[in-house]
Every structure is written in structure tokens, then in C-alpha cells.
């Protein structure tokens, strides 16, 4: 029995909250935009619910959950949801990822790597 899910950490000791704002990387803005399209907040075709996004975030392995940033979790989760919904297949995703990797560095990915935190 799982008494308490990893993400459900309200009230646990956590240290100080960092109250600083930070600028978002381009890829994070794109993930946000993608999510708005997929849940139908903008555009005409609703492909998923925000509740599915949350479910798949909550299903991340705890160690990965802790390592990831906010939009890292989003992009993994919405991709997982698209597989579950049959919009894309695991195989298509694997092939696309390999293709992108082969493309190598772009100004876009370089900027992402310089980001701290």
C-alpha cells in the first residue's frame, strides 16, 4: 500500500522557499504553449486534460521528480499522455528523439545548457 505519494509533500520539512523570479528558457515557453493547445485552452482540438498531466507527473519516479524542473516534468508528462492517448507511438517518439539528437547543437540547445539551476 502506498500511504503517501512522493509528490504529496505538503507539511514535510523542506527548508526555505526561494522567492526569486527567473526568466523562462525558450523551450519552457514552448512546452507551456504546447500544453495550452493540447488541453484546448487555445485552439480547437482538445487532446488531453490537465488532470492527466498531473497524474503522469505524480507517476514520475521520486528521484527523477526531485531532479526535474517544473517544465521538465510537464514535457515528460504530456509526452507520456500522448502515448497513452494513441496520438503518438513509443516507436515514433524514439525515432524522432534519435533524429533530433543527430541534428546536434543548435542555438536553441546551447542556450538551454548555459542555464543554471
Amino acid at each position, binding site marked *: 500500500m502506498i500511504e503517501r505519494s512522493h509528490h504529496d509533500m505538503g507539511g514535510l520539512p523542506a527548508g526555505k522557499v526561494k522567492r526569486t523570479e527567473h526568466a523562462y528558457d525558450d523551450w519552457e515557453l514552448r512546452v507551456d504553449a504546447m500544453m495550452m493547445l493540447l488541453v484546448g485552452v487555445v485552439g480547437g482540438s482538445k487532446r488531453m*486534460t490537465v488532470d*492527466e498531466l498531473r497524474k503522469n507527473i505524480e507517476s514520475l519516479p521520486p528521484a527523477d521528480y526531485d531532479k526535474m524542473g517544473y517544465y521538465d516534468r510537464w514535457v515528460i508528462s504530456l509526452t507520456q499522455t500522448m502515448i497513452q492517448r494513441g496520438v503518438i507511438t513509443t516507436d515514433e517518439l524514439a525515432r524522432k528523439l534519435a533524429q533530433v539528437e543527430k541534428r546536434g547543437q543548435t542555438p536553441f540547445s546551447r542556450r538551454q545548457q548555459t542555464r543554471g539551476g
Partner: protein
Amino acid sequence: MTVEKMGSVPLYRSGDRVRVRKAAPLGHVRTPFYIRGHAGVVERYCGAFPNPEELAQQRDGLPAQPLYRVRFRQKDVWPGYRGGAADVIEIEIFQHWIEA
């Protein structure tokens, strides 16, 4: 027909004393762990909404579930709470997570 009209009947009203069910199911849950099992008072009825636990599993979440804002005393929720005795926390909780 509105979502609310299709929904379950609201069983509680403002001022009713209620307790949050102490349960640990699988799936997606909107009731935080720390409030399960605690007693509070219904502050307001918020309307009925498709059940997020069902929406998370690709179902329509209907009938809509009544949602309440429930007020708890902080000192009841947190052991050794050092803030004011009148401090409260309000959490929105779906009806199926509530017992009288």
C-alpha cells in the same frame, strides 16, 4: 444542461461539521495527504465539477462531484503549531472525500 445539473446532489451546507476521509487509494487524488482524517467546517459550497480522479484516467468525470471549501483550524492540522490559535486553512475538497 449544465454540468452542475447533471451532478450528484450536494449533501452538505455552510457551517456543517465534516471530516475528510482517511484513505490512500491509487490514481490521481486532489485531497492532500496532510488533511486526510481531519475535521473541519464547510465554509461554502463551490459548485459541482467533473471528478478530476476520473478525468485523469481519460473518462468524462460525470456525474459532476459537489466541491466544498472546508475550513480547518491550523492547530488541529499541525502538531505543535506555533501560530495564532484562530489561524485557519481552507481547502477545496470534493464530496466523495467527505464524511459527516
